[in-house]
Every structure is written in structure tokens, then in C-alpha cells.
């Protein structure tokens, strides 16, 4: 095939244009895009590095605030612990009753209705605050002062105890008629006032109390929820029926 000079020039020009096009599209552009990608990735890393350096400068402050959070959480976890801690409640109530002078007669523990129906020990019926509740029922007797002291201690306890039902009943123990009071000289004025209703003893009041304690099943490491844990018995007795 014989081409004229003009045709040869045209072919050369075409080859050159096609070559340029192919080179630009399949060699230069991909490399350029790759370079742009790497630049963007590096920009992101640089930003992360700047914030990481700032964080590192404030690491002491972070540790302080974490410690602060931990202390606050511990305080809250004492009020609503992660588990029932029923033995600890029994221990606390007995101790508080003894300190208040209240004679503890009966102490019952009952699962909340929701827990009973579903079984298992870790279920927690809802109280509307994301916590489960356990119900305690106690009966005790003492003077009005003893009872109020006990109720105050319960109210100020580290754990939240919500009283749901209460009954105070005077006169469970019969006392002598006014003559006896006057003879003893203990309190003539009170004796006079008791005239006719003196069968009731104001210092012997029966307290019947129903209260709830809460738990939420959540715990974070390093938090002490209960200060005085009840330890298991470690005696080596042969006969458990023997006193």
C-alpha cells in the first residue's frame, strides 16, 4: 500500500492523538487519582493526630474526671446495687433494729410478683426506673422513740429503702390500771391521762413494716457496692442439730 505524504502525516497524527489519549486515560489519570486519594487519607490522619496530641496533653484531666465519675458511681451503686444483696439487708436491718432498741420479731423476704412468675434469681421486675425490687416485711416492737429512730436509720441508710406499708399498733401488752401507775409513782400525770384507756401501753408499740429495696443488674469494674459483706460460715460442726 502506497500512502501519500499527506496521508502518512495524517496517520502519524492519529497515532499520536490515540497514544496521548490512551496514556492519559490508562496511565496518567489512575496515578493522579491514586495520589489524590493518598493525600486525602493523610489529611484525615493528620487531623486525628492533632486531636490525639490534644487529648494526650489533657490525659491527667481525663484520669481525674474518670476517678470522679467512679466515686460518684460508687455512691449511686450503694443506693441501688447491681444485685439483691439480701443477706446484707437482713444484717443491716437487724443491726439497725438493735441500735434503735427495736425488738425485731419477724422478718420476711419476698420476691416481687414479676420475679416470682418468671423464676430465676437474676430477673428484675420493672419499677419504672430500670431497676428490680425486692420486698421485705418486718414486725417489731418497741417504744415510739425506738420505732422513729429505726425508721430514721432506715431512711438514712446508704441503700434506698422505700416504705410501702406501715402499721403501728399500741397496746399489745396490757399494763396495770391507773392505781398501779400512781402507786409506782412513775408518771402520775400520764396515769391520770390514761384514765379509762390505760389498758394500752404507749411504750409497747407493734410495728409492722413493708419496704422495698432495689437492684439493677448493672455493674462497672472497681465499684464497691456494699461495705459490710456477710461472710459465709466456716465452722466444722459434726452435728448441725446439736446446739
Amino acid at each position: 500500500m502506497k500512502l501519500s505524504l499527506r496521508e502518512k502525516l495524517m496517520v502519524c497524527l492519529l497515532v499520536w492523538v490515540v497514544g496521548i489519549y490512551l496514556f492519559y486515560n490508562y496511565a496518567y489519570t489512575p496515578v493522579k487519582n491514586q495520589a489524590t486519594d493518598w493525600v486525602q487519607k493523610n489529611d484525615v490522619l493528620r487531623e486525628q493526630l492533632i486531636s490525639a496530641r490534644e487529648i494526650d496533653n489533657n490525659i491527667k484531666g481525663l484520669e481525674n474526671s474518670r476517678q470522679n465519675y467512679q466515686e460518684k458511681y460508687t455512691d449511686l451503686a450503694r443506693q441501688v446495687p447491681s444485685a439483691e444483696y439480701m443477706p446484707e439487708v437482713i444484717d443491716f436491718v437487724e443491726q439497725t433494729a438493735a441500735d434503735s432498741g427495736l425488738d425485731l420479731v419477724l422478718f420476711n423476704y419476698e420476691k416481687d410478683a414479676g420475679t416470682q412468675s418468671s423464676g430465676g434469681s437474676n430477673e428484675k421486675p420493672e419499677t419504672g426506673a430500670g431497676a428490680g425490687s425486692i420486698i421485705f416485711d418486718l414486725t417489731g416492737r418497741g417504744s415510739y422513740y425506738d420505732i422513729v429512730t429505726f425508721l430514721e436509720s432506715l431512711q438514712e441508710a446508704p441503700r434506698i429503702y422505700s416504705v410501702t406499708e406501715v402499721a403501728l399498733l399500741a397496746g399489745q401488752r396490757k399494763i396495770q390500771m391507773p392505781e398501779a401507775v400512781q402507786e409506782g409513782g412513775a408518771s402520775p400525770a400520764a396515769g391520770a391521762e390514761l384514765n379509762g384507756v390505760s389498758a394500752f401501753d404507749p411504750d409497747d408499740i407493734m410495728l409492722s413494716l413493708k419496704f422495698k429495696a432495689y437492684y439493677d443488674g448493672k455493674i462497672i469494674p472497681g465499684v464497691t457496692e456494699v461495705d459490710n459483706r456477710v461472710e459465709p460460715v466456716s465452722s466444722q460442726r459434726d452435728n448441725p442439730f446439736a446446739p
Partner: protein
Amino acid sequence: MLIFYFNQVERVSLEKRQYHQLQQELLRYGPSQAAINLNRDMKKQLDEKSRQVDTLKLQGMPLTIILDDIEQAMPEGGRLVNLAAADNKITLKGYTSNFSSAARLVVSLQQSPRFQDVAVLNLQREEESGKVMFSLEMVWKKGDKI
């Protein structure tokens, strides 16, 4: 054309090297990021727990305050023999020296900001003692807390 191409190739290899260097440097600050995340989680849990405790504190009745109000309302010569409270209903039974004292007790309880709907269930004079036996019922305002 080739010059531009090789420039870009060189730029890619330079950026790659920088990328690895930045990554290495960032790894050294890894623990700080973990500390930030830990703090963020702990703060979130703390806020949740705080809300929960605040809600639970409002449950139940402030018994000592209720008793204090009843103590204040009792007239001279009067005495309680029975107090029962469940949910927000309180029942009182006792004796006063006369009907007028029982009425004053009712008024005192009505004036307490913590009680409402104070109602007399029964007032009866005992023949033997001459004392008036009262039986009252009232509602404790549940929103009113310690």
C-alpha cells in the same frame, strides 16, 4: 507528558511513606483515645444511674415526716392506738379527751400541707373512761417528698 506522569508516581510514593509514618505516630496515642472512650462510657452510665436513683428516691413514703406531722397535730390528752398507711392512704385510730379535741385534731391534719381529704370515720365516747375514740382517714400527697 512523561514528566507529569513520573511526578505523580513520585507523589504517590511520597504520600504512601507519609501515611505509614502518620499511622505509626497515631498508634503511640492509642491509649489516649481508649481513655476518652472509657470516660465517655462511664459518664453515660453515671448519668443513667443518677436518673434511676433520683426516680427511686421518690418512691415510698417519708414516714418520719408523716409521723412528725401527726405528732404536731395531736391535741393535749389525746393518743394514738393505731396508725396504718399503705400506698398513700393513712388511717388513724385513738382517743381524745372530748369531741372538741377530736375536731381540733382533724383541723390540724387538714392544715398540714402533706395531707388532704382528712375524713372522720367514727367518733364515739367510751362509757367507762369518758374518752372519745376517733377513727380518721386521710390521703398523703404523694408528690410531697422529703
